[in-house]
């Protein structure tokens, strides 16, 4: 046992440290220097307020009593966060846009700013969370007693911790009332506490791991740690339903618990933090849960069999003489308890002041220079003190009996009643206030009578009767369905059923539908916010804002928008803005009522409502259509760009072609002109004259040929050249071409050799095909470059009739290969002085027209091979 004085000093010192951290952070934040609060790690650590003393002490206890079931409380949130992208960004976005202050405010805002919804949620939260706070205070006093023994009885630690927490939350949680400022001091303290409790638990876990090999203490429950661990890691028989329900409840708790909603949604600084927390927070839970196993195993082997498993975390180091670790455990438990108490009491106080008290205050004439603000803040302080006072009284009254120990799960089941309305609210447009009120109300009543009251031993007759009526005989008894499974399933089923059915059966008001749109479409709505069509005199709005928020804030609101305070009407967007600002002090529901009183504009009729919704939907449809159109435009632009590029290429080619045509025509024309001039200059002898005339004639012929070629190519390109496809023998065409060219080849000293076998039937225009082969042979002969043979080969390859013409020339230079089949490519060639170079272009066009193609198969110093290929018997269209 430790001295009570020491423990009190350390505990008091720790609480003082919390005050210092919160104070310094508040000062830094006021000076704009608390950048570290903007980190996703701080956000994650603040989420870890989920781990209360119920985790710190209770997880080991649950593991010892019920086996592996204890992990569900931490796996549930992990599973929920695996699907974080489905709901968390939307919750955060909506909460920011609507200036939401609590989960009650969120639900009320969603369901048409309904005050009954807000009040109902607030009462459910108070009923669930106050006993939960009591549990934390009880944990502090029990752990203190365990540490110092009977000496601790006199010091009512729970009371003093409660008092310290009232001061702490009032100091750092109720300083300001402003939508733009959260509570930096509190966030920093919570993050710090999360580090402390984790470090403490892991340190004791490590200590337990070191203890394990030492073997069992005499009188322990288990003789060796293997068996202890097997017991801790065992699945409870018939525990399937409980396993499922616990997982579901803890998954819901991660946003439905008021304190979790507070840190995860209201205090969120950036949507990007959510993505980091989606894995970092489960990792935190994972480590905490992992740390529980060795402590449980070591407690079962290293402590006497009767030891209280809920206090293993403390008694283990104590029994093994490590006072420092025992104190660390106490501080860890204290940090877990205080962090929960701080955030939960603040969240409850905000709900109580905004939804229960402020609406009553709002009607009074305001005299204070800060409007209602100071009254609201005062209400919050009173609420904090009341909630903690109630918690303390609970803890005294129950005095550590089993009733309080089960309150954690009962609280989870209580706040899980928010889940249908919360999740339905951001996905289901038709959900309305009547459905939400009915579901929440009925679910809460069932929860009250099946879970909360029986846990205090009150009204147990009702739950017994319900079990008797609803369950089969065999399951209705005490050892039948687990009470938690029964209560949670029944209350949630009733809740969900009424929520859905009543929403479908009734029609909400206009504002229900408007808010539904704002919530459901939060992530993909562009353009101006749809607002109720109202207008109010600016002066009236200013008076209202002044009365609720005080002149300073009211002035700031008007100045932000650059509006003067005059008789001018304010537009509906500004009315909505003022309403949200006021809502931050008095809740969405009463802000709406207050603004409705001064907004004398257009009365809201069914017609207006329909127009409003249609406008919203039209705007969305228009945005979507715009999106589609811009994609289409982009596609068209790309097509135009490529068409333009193709046209530019064509234009270049055309210019090129023209310049080449003129160049090609210039040569023969120059010759003709000069010889004609010679003839004109004077008498020449007959031989000279005849030679000149022969030259003129041959050059003119060349010109004609050139023009014929150009015309032919033009027709082919335009697809206007006449083609007469008929069944032909390709071998015969090749033979005829060779025979026609034999004379020309002989004159050039080249021998033509035909390699052909059986007839190759095809469907083509024989004359055109012959034109191609003749052109290829003529080129081959011209460029045979000293070799004495040109081979023409006819073959069938891959189902194509192929005529191949091979020469032994020097090959085609790389520079002109890419342009080989374009017009006048040949004239690039140094060796081609005579050819007009249209031959290959024409040939390729012909082959294309015949349904085949013409390719350069091979070229190099050993020679060049062209291949003309034709489909064999397919009918050729056109």
């Amino acid at each position, binding site marked *: 046992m430790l001295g009570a004085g020491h423990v009190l000093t350390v505990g008091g010192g720790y609480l003082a440290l919390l005050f210092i951290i919160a104070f310094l952070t508040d000062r830094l934040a006021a000076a704009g220097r608390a950048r570290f609060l903007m980190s996703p790690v701080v956000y994650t650590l603040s989420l870890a307020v989920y781990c209360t003393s119920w985790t710190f002490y209770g997880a080991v206890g649950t593991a010892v009593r019920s086996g592996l079931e204890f*992990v569900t409380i931490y796996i549930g949130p992990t599973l929920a966060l*695996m699907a974080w992208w489905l709901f968390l960004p939307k919750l955060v976005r909506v909460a920011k846009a609507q200036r939401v202050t609590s989960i009650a405010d969120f639900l009320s805002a969603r369901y048409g700013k309904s005050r009954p919804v807000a009040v109902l949620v607030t009462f459910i939260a108070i009923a669930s969370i106050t006993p939960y706070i009591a549990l934390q205070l009880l944990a502090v006093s029990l752990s203190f007693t365990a540490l110092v023994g009977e000496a601790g009885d006199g010091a009512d630690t729970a009371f003093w911790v409660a008092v310290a927490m009232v001061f702490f939350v009032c100091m750092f949680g109720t300083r300001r009332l402003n939508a733009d400022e959260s509570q930096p001091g509190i966030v920093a303290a919570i993050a710090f506490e999360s580090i402390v409790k984790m470090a403490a638990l892991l340190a004791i876990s490590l200590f337990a791991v070191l203890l394990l090999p030492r073997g069992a203490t005499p009188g322990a429950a288990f003789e060796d740690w293997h068996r202890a661990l097997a017991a801790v890691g065992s699945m409870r028989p018939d525990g399937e339903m409980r396993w499922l329900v616990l997982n579901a409840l803890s998954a819901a708790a991660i946003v439905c618990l008021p304190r979790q909603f507070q840190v995860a949604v209201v205090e969120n600084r950036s949507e990007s933090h959510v993505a980091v927390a989606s*894995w970092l927070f489960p990792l935190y839970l994972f480590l905490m849960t992992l740390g529980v196993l060795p402590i449980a195993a070591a407690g079962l082997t290293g402590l006497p069999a009767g030891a209280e498993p809920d206090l293993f975390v403390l008694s283990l180091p104590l029994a093994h003489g490590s006072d420092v670790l025992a104190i660390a455990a106490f501080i860890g438990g204290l940090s877990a308890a205080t962090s929960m108490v701080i955030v939960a009491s603040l969240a409850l106080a905000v709900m109580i002041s905004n939804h229960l008290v402020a609406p009553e205050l709002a009607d009074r004439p305001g005299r204070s220079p800060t409007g209602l603000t100071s009254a609201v803040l005062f209400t919050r302080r009173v609420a904090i003190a009341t909630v903690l006072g109630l918690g303390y009284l609970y803890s005294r009254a129950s005095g550590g009996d089993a009733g309080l120990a089960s309150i954690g799960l009962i609280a989870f089941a209580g706040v899980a009643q928010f889940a249908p309305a919360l999740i339905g609210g951001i996905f289901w447009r038709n959900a309305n206030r009547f459905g939400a009120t009915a579901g929440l109300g009925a679910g809460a009543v069932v929860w009250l009578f099946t879970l909360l009251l029986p846990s205090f031993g009150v009204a147990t007759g009702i739950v017994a009767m319900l079990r008797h009526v609803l369950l089969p005989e065999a399951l209705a008894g005490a050892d039948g369905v687990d009470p938690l499974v029964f209560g949670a399933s029944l209350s949630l089923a009733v809740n969900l059923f009424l929520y859905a059915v009543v929403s479908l059966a009734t029609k909400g008001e206009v504002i229900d539908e408007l808010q539904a749109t704002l919530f459901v479409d939060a992530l993909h709505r562009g353009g101006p916010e749809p607002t109720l069509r109202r207008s109010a005199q600016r002066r009236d709005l200013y008076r209202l804002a002044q009365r609720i928020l005080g002149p300073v804030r009211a002035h700031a609101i008007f100045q932000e928008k650059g509006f003067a305070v005059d008789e001018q009407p304010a537009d509906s967007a500004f009315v909505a803005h003022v309403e949200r600002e006021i809502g931050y002090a008095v809740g969405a529901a009463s802000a709406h009522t207050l603004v409705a009183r001064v907004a004398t504009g257009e009365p809201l009729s069914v017609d207006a409502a329909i127009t409003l919704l249609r406008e919203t939907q039209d705007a969305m449809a228009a945005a979507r259509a715009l*999106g589609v159109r811009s994609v289409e435009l982009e596609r068209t632009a790309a097509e135009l760009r490529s068409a333009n590029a193709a046209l530019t290429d064509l234009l270049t080619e055309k210019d090129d072609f023209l310049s080449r045509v003129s160049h090609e025509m210039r040569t023969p024309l120059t010759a003709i002109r000069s010889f004609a001039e010679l003839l004109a200059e004077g008498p020449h002898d007959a031989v000279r004259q005849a030679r000149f005339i022969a030259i003129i004639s041959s050059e003119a012929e060349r010109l004609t040929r050139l023009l014929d070629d150009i015309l032919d190519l033009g027709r082919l390109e335009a697809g206007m050249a006449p083609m007469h496809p008929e069944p032909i023998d390709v071998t015969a065409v090749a033979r005829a071409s060779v025979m026609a060219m034999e004379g020309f080849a002989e004159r050039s000293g080249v021998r033509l050799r035909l390699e052909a076998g059986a007839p190759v039937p095809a469907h083509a225009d024989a004359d055109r095909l012959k034109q191609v082969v003749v052109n290829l042979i003529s080129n081959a002969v011209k460029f045979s470059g000293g070799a004495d043979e040109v081979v023409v080969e006819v073959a069938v390859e891959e189902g194509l009739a192929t005529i191949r013409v091979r020469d032994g020339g020097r090959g085609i230079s790389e520079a002109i290969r890419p342009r080989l089949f374009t017009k006048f490519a040949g004239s690039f060639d140094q060796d081609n002085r005579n050819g007009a170079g249209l031959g290959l272009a024409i040939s390729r066009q012909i082959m294309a027209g015949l349904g085949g193609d013409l390719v350069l198969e091979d070229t190099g110093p050993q020679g060049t091979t062209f291949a003309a290929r034709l489909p064999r018997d397919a009918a050729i269209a056109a």
Partner: protein
Amino acid sequence: MNAEEPGEPTPPASRARSDGRTLLAIAGPVLFTPPAMALADRDFSVSGVPAVVVYVFLAWFVGILLTRWLARSRREGR
């Protein structure tokens, strides 16, 4: 051109990622259903730790790693 979300054409990579997120959101709960737990509840242990405990913590940790990986690639994708 069907199925393309108008206005926000999703590049194929991020579509694969969003498929991954959906799969994870479904697979996670399935891995912790009572039947899956019953399957893992075998009569052997890994250096003293019961099989079902190893299963729970392993599946949990892998789930965390996958969530991190998908959350990360999502941010980089933006």
